[in-house]
């Protein structure tokens, strides 16, 4: 978003990228791969092989992502949408993030003591969460390559 209009955008953008990076890292850390492939042996990365720790960090990342999403959604609907519109790549990212969020919420619910899902549904949410994340990562990499942002100024649209 335009920095004059929304000066904290720069910081939120950095925080969002950092959180997504940590979510990916700790998400992949839920699979037993970092120790097997010596990544956890790299000094400073031993924590990646600690399943409970990576799980907590993943949860904390989800909380922060929810806060940022709520903040940005409010900023867009109350103010930003009068001057900006979401780009097509933004819609794709929002849909993928929503899919990751929904499957993630079901994973969190599954981990609560009194909630039991059927085995097939449990497997479906486990695997779909991973698949949506992989698609999101590929999409995010492509949009980074094509320099597709989230917002476009309405004035620029009318100029075009």
């Amino acid at each position, binding site marked *: 978003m335009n920095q004059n209009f929304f000066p904290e955008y720069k910081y939120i953008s950095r925080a969002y990228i950092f959180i997504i990076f940590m979510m990916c890292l700790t998400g992949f850390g839920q699979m037993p791969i970092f120790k097997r492939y010596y990544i956890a042996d790299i000094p400073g990365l031993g924590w990646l092989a600690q399943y409970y720790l990576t799980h907590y960090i993943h949860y904390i990342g989800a909380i922060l992502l*929810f806060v940022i999403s709520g903040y940005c959604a409010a900023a867009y609907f109350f103010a930003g949408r009068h001057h900006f519109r979401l780009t097509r790549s933004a819609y794709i990212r929002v849909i993928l993030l929503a899919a990751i969020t929904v499957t993630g919420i079901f994973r969190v619910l599954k981990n609560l003591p009194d909630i039991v899902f059927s085995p097939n549904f449990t497997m479906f949410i486990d695997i779909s969460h991973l698949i949506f994340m992989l698609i999101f990562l590929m999409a995010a990499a492509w949009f980074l390559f094509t320099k597709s942002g989230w917002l476009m100024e309405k004035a620029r649209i009318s100029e075009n």
Partner: protein
Amino acid sequence: MQKISRRSFLKAGLAAAGTVGISGLALPSSLRGADQTPLATLIDIRKCVGCEACVDACKEANADKFPQPQKPFPKMYPSRVKVSDWSDKKEVRNRLTPYTWVFIQSAEVVVDGEKQTLTFPRRCMHCQNPPCADLCPWGAARKLENGITLIHADICLGGQKCKAVCPWSIPEQQTGVGLYLDILPSLAGNGVMFKCDRCYNRLEKGSLPACIENCPENVQTIGPREEIVRQAHAIAKEIGGYIYGETENGGTNTLYVSPVPFETLNKAVEKGPGQPHFNKVGDSMAHADNLAKAMIIAPFAGLAAGAVRCYKAAKTIAASADKGAQEEK
């Protein structure tokens, strides 16, 4: 299956407690998990004589679930990934293995001033909120509504995460079996994890788990968890004993009642790989459960912060517009 008459079943005195002990009788639907009642088992340590009838019964009843690995095993990379092969050591009985889902642990302790050797079966604790099922990345480990924690052998890739997060390190790995052989056998996975499934298939048919049905000393009792906890407290009160599993790891569906403190038992038992401890265990998933509550508040907190931010910005813009208008006048 050994048939026991209704009379002997009642004689066991377990029906009165609303639970089922040694019996070949068909289980009521509540015990089959048909009405989604979590079932628990109570192991009365006083009664166990260490005869290993439970071990034999488990091995016989679950023989078709035991791994039948394909050899030679695929070469795995990197070299730190070790083969875990128990197929030539199927008769090992002093610890848990992929072929021994229950074993008899012993402890030399002093009971009422007398030195005694206590024996007791050890197997999966079937936690109420099992970290193995919660944290399994594939959904291979799962909790069932009737209180069983189960590892699906056709889905498990043998990554050992369930063992790493289990407070008692219960699941045991066998290389050369399972889904990983069909995916990337050299690069991902390493077999299947095995552990007690509390004879879920027998329970579905209305039979008791094999270890319970075949115990000659009625060491184990199975029933709705509330009843089992009540029964454990009644025994503990009667003998001045101690309970393990009621609160461990947030509560388990395997409870022990002992005449000596579990700290004493824990010091006396042989511990190591495949030989679980009797330590006090906090709720492994408690932090995650608390963070889950914070997740409910988080988006609303963000929305509120964003709304306040926009309101203040609008107010500032309006104020500066007013000021500008006044200056123009």
